[in-house]
């Protein structure tokens, strides 16, 4: 039981430290001058994705030991969200390009 508590404590600590580091990386990319805008945006996007994965693992404990229903639910919602967000941005930016 004691070991269990310690390893879980370590997991939260690792999650917090990694999240803080990724946040700092994203802020650094935007605030350091002399970086191309697209490079900064790529760094911010990659850091955000990485931090979401870290927090899903370390704080929400989503992983291979989770129930299959839950994983299906999460994956299905992510697919739906990606379709709606990606589709919206794609269609609207294409429309925008054709208007001007």
């Amino acid at each position: 039981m004691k070991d269990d508590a310690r390893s879980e404590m370590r997991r939260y600590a690792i999650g917090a430290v990694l999240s803080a580091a990724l946040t700092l990386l994203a802020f650094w990319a935007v605030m350091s001058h002399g970086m191309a805008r697209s490079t900064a945006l790529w760094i911010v996007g990659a850091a955000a994705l990485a931090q979401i994965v870290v927090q899903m693992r370390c704080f929400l404990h989503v992983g291979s030991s989770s129930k299959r229903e839950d994983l299906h639910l999460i994956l299905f919602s992510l697919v739906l969200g990606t379709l709606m967000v990606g589709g919206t941005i794609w269609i609207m930016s294409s429309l925008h390009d054709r208007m001007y």
Partner: protein
Amino acid sequence: MSSSAHPGINLGGGDPKAQRESETPAFGFWVFLMSDLIIFGVLFAHYVVMTGARAGGPGPSTLFDLRSVAAQTFLLLASSFTYGMASLALKHQRQVRPVAIWLIVTAALGAAFVLLELRDFVNMVGEGGPPQRSGFLSALWALTGLHWLHVTAGLVWIATMLALLSRFGLSDRNKTRLLLLGLYWHFLDLIWIGILSVVYLGGLA
């Protein structure tokens, strides 16, 4: 317990009855969280489409204050971590006191976040950026405002949770409520990562 359980911290072998009773509510709560995710996702898409629709109004460089945003980010991250400590106290110490103390710390950090962002909202109106000013501003207020309301609702939930804890102690139902509140609180930090990256850092890059 068996190797398959709902995502989120599990009470585990030390408390199998409370763990079993939390399974169905936890699944239902994940359904709510994922539908909430879809709402936020569509608001993100809306915001990205609207970024150019300034109508001559102020843009990110006049409206956003990166230092305040950084403070908010670390407050919310810290509060997510301290909620984790409350979950561990629930699982391993199984006493009301440490759980309540971590909840109060979490609520204090969350309240600081809410107040800082409220100050930013007031400043934005002062800079000529109320929600009705442009399409960009409507989208911005809808997205950040909904997240702000979620955190505020979370604070009300934590206050309710403390009252329930003092009334009923660590009953099985209260344990379930604490697990669900934890999922909610960690989820709000996930949404904030998106807002930070897309709205604030993306807008100022």
